[in-house]
Each structure stands twice: as C-alpha cells, then as structure tokens.
C-alpha cells in the first residue's frame, strides 16, 4: 500500500521497501544519523525538497495509473492523509491549546462532521478500543483525563492518547515514530495492546513503526513483524 523507491531517509541511507496491508512493519533507523520525523515532514509537504519517491496505492491519476506523492498538490495530499494515513509522533502530537477530548474530535470536526456525530463516533471508537474505562497509574479515570490539556499529562499518556486520536480516524496506514521510546515496560505493553486491538478492529490496516533502538523487539516478541532497514529489506516471521 505504501512503496519507498530510492527514498533518502538521511545522507547515504536509502530505503527500498513496500508496506503491505494487514502487516506490522518495523523500520530501524540509526539514531545518530536519522531524524525520525523526516518521513512525517516529507509527507506533510516537504516532498519537493526530498530525494527519492513515495507511492501510495490509493493515489492514482484519471486513468488509474499510480502517481508519486511528490506530484500531488498540497491540498490533495492533505485529503489523502485525512482518509488513509495516520501519524503518531513521539509525544503524541496533540495540540496543547485544546483538551484531550477536543483533540480527539478535532480532525472529524475540521472535515465538516457535525459535533454531536463527531463526539458519538469518537466515543464509539474509543469504546471499541477499550479506552473509556482506562485510567492512569495515579488512579485518575479516563473521563477526567479527557478534560485535561496534553501538557498536564505524562509522556506515556500523551503518546497513548495521541495514538487513540489517530486511530479514531480509522486510517488504513498508521505510521508511529518511536512509540516505545522512554517508556516503562508496562506502558510499552499498553501501547502494543492498543495497536493489537486496532489491528483486530481493522484487519486490512498496515502499521509502520519507525524505531531507533532495540526496545520494539522485546515488546513485539509475540507479533509477526516485517522488519525493514534503510538500504535493504528483510523479512522475518
């Protein structure tokens, strides 16, 4: 569904890879040389300055021929992101000016969904993911957490709710940057469980985890993972 073609992640680190539907992919990058947000920046409008091509299966021209993302206008590219791709940055990427609840419905409301429907959709999806009954380690229940601003939450909660906000849009491709970095084992397991629940809910979706350390290996030990490296592509069961 997503194809990297001579895609330059960093000077000297090129990626040739294909992200398949229904699979969990882990892309390992060297933390010293690679900025993990590079891909997000590329997809969010920096495409014209980058080296290499990126193809999304759904992006086609009028006669059905695939089109590289570089060729799309900013507006159209945003439309495709909204529909197919979800990003989760290291700290969740939630807007600090809004509460967590407002962050959860922001994207839907921006795309002309009526507030009541957006809220109902968010609650329905969160219930499916099992989030509404979840609290934090201090015993604060989820409904109360939802009314707080992201700056008041710890790294795990910010990242966790960032994940939930992204998954509420039901993207077909989820790209998460360093999802386990700096977290305790229990928190890492909680995020892995969230991803597992989402994959169960959307079996055709593809997940790409961009990591720099070895922490993903132990957390995802029981998962079937497609491992990617810059400059090569190797598969392991």
């Amino acid at each position, binding site marked *: 569904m997503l194809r990297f073609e001579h895609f330059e992640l960093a000077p000297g680190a090129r990626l040739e890879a294909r992200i398949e539907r229904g699979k969990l992919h882990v892309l390992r990058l060297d933390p010293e040389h690679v900025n993990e*947000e590079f891909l*997000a*920046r590329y*997809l*969010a*409008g920096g495409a014209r300055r980058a080296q290499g091509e990126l193809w999304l299966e759904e992006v086609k021209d009028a006669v059905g021929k695939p089109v590289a993302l570089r060729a799309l206008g900013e507006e159209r590219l*945003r*439309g*495709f*992101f*909204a*529909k197919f*791709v*979800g*990003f989760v*940055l290291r*700290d969740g*990427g*939630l*807007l*600090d*000016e*809004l509460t967590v609840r*407002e962050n959860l419905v*922001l*994207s839907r*409301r*921006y*795309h*002309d969904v*009526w*507030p009541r429907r957006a809220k109902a959709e968010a609650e329905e999806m969160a219930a499916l993911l099992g989030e509404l009954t979840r609290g934090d380690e201090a015993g604060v229940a989820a409904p109360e957490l939802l009314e707080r601003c992201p700056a008041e939450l710890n790294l795990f909660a910010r990242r966790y709710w960032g994940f939930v906000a*992204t998954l509420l*849009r039901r993207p077909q491709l989820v790209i998460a940057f360093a999802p386990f970095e700096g977290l305790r084992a229990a928190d890492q397991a909680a995020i892995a469980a969230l991803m597992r629940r989402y994959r169960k809910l959307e079996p055709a979706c593809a997940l790409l985890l961009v990591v720099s350390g070895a922490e993903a290996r132990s957390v995802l030990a029981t998962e079937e993972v497609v491992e990617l490296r810059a400059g090569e592509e190797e598969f392991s069961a």
Partner: protein
Amino acid sequence: MTDSLVLAASMVSRAAALRRRAVRDALAAAFVSGLGRTAVSAVWVAAILGVTLLQFVLPLLPWFGARPEELARIFLFAVQHLGDVLAGVLVVGQAGLASTWELWRARERHRFTSVAAAGMDPLELLVLPRVWGLALVYLIGGMLFKVTAVVAAVWVNYAIDGRFLGPEIGGILEEGGRGILAGYALNAAVGAAVGVVCCAPVLGRMSAAETVAPIGRVFRQALVLIFAAKLLFFVI
C-alpha cells in the same frame, strides 16, 4: 416548492459551514482567553497612567503658566493618544511575542507536521487564530484607553470648573463619535499586522531569538513614529 427546497438546502449548507467555522472559533477562543490577560494589563496601565497624570503631572502644569483649558487639552491628548501607543506596546510586548514563542515551540514540537499529517491546514488552525486574537486585543486595548480618556475628561472637567460635564467632554465625545469606527478598524488592522509580523517569521526556519529581536526593534520604532505623527497632526 422549488424555492423552499433551495432555501432549505442553502440553510443546511450554511449550517454546515458554520459548524466547520466552529472548530476555528474554538481554537480562536482558546488563544483569545490567553490573550485576554493582555487586555487586563491594558486596564491596569490605563489606570496607572491616568492616576499618575492626574496626581502628579496635572498639578505641576500651572507652574509653567498653562491655562486650565490648555491643561485639560494636554491631559486629554496624552491619555487618548499615548493610550494607543501603550496599547500597541502591550500587544507587541505581551501577546505578540507570546504568540511568536508559542508558534516557535509548536514548530519545534512538530505540531505543524502532526496537524498537516491529520489532513488539516496548520496555517488555518495554528497561525490565523493568533492573528485574529492580536487584532482583537489591540482593538480592546484601544477601546479601554478611549474609555479611560472619557473618564479622565470628566475628572479634569470637575477639577477645572467644578462640573462633571462640560465643553471638554462634549469635544472628546464628538471627536470619538466621528472617528470611532475608522479608529477601531485601524486598531484592529494594526493588531492583525502585528500578528502577521509576529507569526510569519516562525513559519520559516528562524529561531525564537532571531525572530523576537527584530520584531521588538521594528515595532518600537514604528510606535515612536506613530506617536510623533499624531503629535505633529495635533500641533498643526
């Protein structure tokens, strides 16, 4: 029947457009609530300025041979026109630079990326509410100083001839009435311009320090020039 359907369709589409605007309004409200602190500061500065002029400057002026009417005009001019300049200083010094800092922090934390990656326009969600907020704050700041000028005029009038209402009040209200819309529109436009100047450099690759220093310098000079131009206009 057709007319009713067209009307119903237009009402629905308008309602949908309003709902979409509600997202931006929610964000704008979040910023404006923060920027509201600046308006509160404007009240304090207006009060301090008024009290300082009334208590300390006004009693000294007769020593320099000023007549009561001249004294009142000098005082009202100072409160009214210096007020605009002070409102500008507050907008630039507090809300403008705070916006620059917030946007710079948002950029460093990849908020522009995350908003764009969710299919939304970062300019619309992160930058424009701040520009509107600054326009509003400058507008409110300007209004507060006008109100202060009217209150001060009442006070001065009482100090001069023992009546609360007199020719000075009539003059200031008349002048205010004439230029009220133009003056507030100008204030809002200046506030929006401050917003654009404060927000635009952050969209490039400049750091917060690189952005803040030139903005402060440019606006300091601009405000001095505005005040000098007003003074010249008043004298002529």
